[in-house]
């Protein structure tokens, strides 16, 4: 890889200042950046590590039941966190699908999201958790709902110098589930990722959120499918309609891993299936 200047700032303000300069890249876990630098697809002149900035790691549960995940938290920690497993199971399942244990010990949830791959494994679970993305930059801080973060493959609304600091998951789901459609057990990219989260009260779905990955230029919510579910009892017919509505919301491409037609049909199937699992978890 090409050489570069390396910085390890101790404050977010300093990191933002360095990152706002041209040809600068942030280093979180490095599992995307270092591969890119070896392949010369990334040739930054400066690399700014976030590892010395306090307050960017860890998972905390607040008194209002919301959960905050620091952007530099390793995905292995997200995968094993009891709070995430209990309240946002789909996110823990997504985290557990990334690479291998060795990679999950390096990769961070902030990096997985900031890299903005439409196929990121934590993104469907974060969409289904309605995560709020906290961002810090030269002009202060702001919060963006995760479904408004992405603008295209590898593209986000982040402006030069802006850094994701944490994800806030506002309220627990009664049940959630993630399915990664893939070939290999580990070390694979998702053909499709689907996460469904439901809140159920007295047999009625009070809230539903569906996150879809790798089936559109950006990760998306299946809003029309969610609206169909809300306020209704979960019948087989309703789940079938929700699956069809999710497929209609997708706009997948054909690539060497599978065809657009296959992806669209599988969005239908997997949405229904994740909803079934999420509802089952909500009952237990």
């Amino acid at each position, binding site marked *: 890889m090409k050489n570069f*200047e390396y910085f390890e700032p101790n404050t977010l303000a300093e990191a933002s200042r360095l990152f706002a300069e041209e040809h600068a890249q942030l280093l979180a876990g490095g599992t995307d950046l270092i591969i890119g630098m070896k392949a010369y697809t990334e040739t930054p002149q400066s690399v700014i590590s976030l590892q010395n900035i306090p307050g960017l790691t860890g998972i905390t549960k607040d008194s209002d039941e919301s959960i905050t995940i620091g952007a530099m938290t390793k995905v292995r920690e997200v995968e094993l966190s009891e709070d995430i497993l209990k309240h946002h199971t789909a996110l823990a399942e997504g985290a557990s699908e990334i690479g*291998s244990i060795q990679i999950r010990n390096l990769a961070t949830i902030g990096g997985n999201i900031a890299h903005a791959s439409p196929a990121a494994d934590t993104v469907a679970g974060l969409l289904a958790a309605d995560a709020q993305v906290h961002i810090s930059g030269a002009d202060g801080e702001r919060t963006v709902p995760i479904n408004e973060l992405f603008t295209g493959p590898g593209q986000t609304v982040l402006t030069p110098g802006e850094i994701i600091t944490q994800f806030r998951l506002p309220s627990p789901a009664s049940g959630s589930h993630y399915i990664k459609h893939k070939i290999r057990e580990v070390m694979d990219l998702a053909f499709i990722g689907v996460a469904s989260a439901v809140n159920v009260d007295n047999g009625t779905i009070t809230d539903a959120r569906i996150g879809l990955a790798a089936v559109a230029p950006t990760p998306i919510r299946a809003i029309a499918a969610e609206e169909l579910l809300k306020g209704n009892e979960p019948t087989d017919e309703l789940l079938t309609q929700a699956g069809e509505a999710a497929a209609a919301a997708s706009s997948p491409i054909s690539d060497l891993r599978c065809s657009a037609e296959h992806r669209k049909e599988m969005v239908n199937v997997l949405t229904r299936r994740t909803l079934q699992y999420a509802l089952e978890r909500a009952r237990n």
Partner: protein
Amino acid sequence: MTKHPVNLKVNGDEHDLLIEPRKTLLAVLRDTIGLTGTKEGCSTGDCGACTVIVDGKAVTSCMVLGVTVSGKEITTIEGLASDGELHPIQQAFIDTGGYQCGFCTPGFIMASKVLVDENPNRTEEEFRHALGGNICRCTGYTKILEAVIQAAEEIRTAS
């Protein structure tokens, strides 16, 4: 480009080095410190041959910049044996024939070492899944799994 001073604690020995930021931990271990037990396979994190332990966690050292691990405790395959006595996982790989050409073996042993130490009660299926980040072209994995299960068994009975 500016070189950076780092203090690497490898297998209990401290190394004060001046390194280029682009040098991976793998390159520093092999080329600068001279510990060539850790292997470079794919160099993209897919094969696990370069697995070492940093602060108790198995990581692919080809994806880690040396400048980022200053002050952290690093263990390589050379650091597993103590006083001439092999770690149970090393002995188990020998006993079962869990190696052939040996190139993937250091990575497999380092990844397995963390697994058996943190939870020797894993099932075979769980070990198999947890070792999914390591690739072997010779053994067909059967003997490797036998080694890991033997070591786990030994650690269970010893504790």
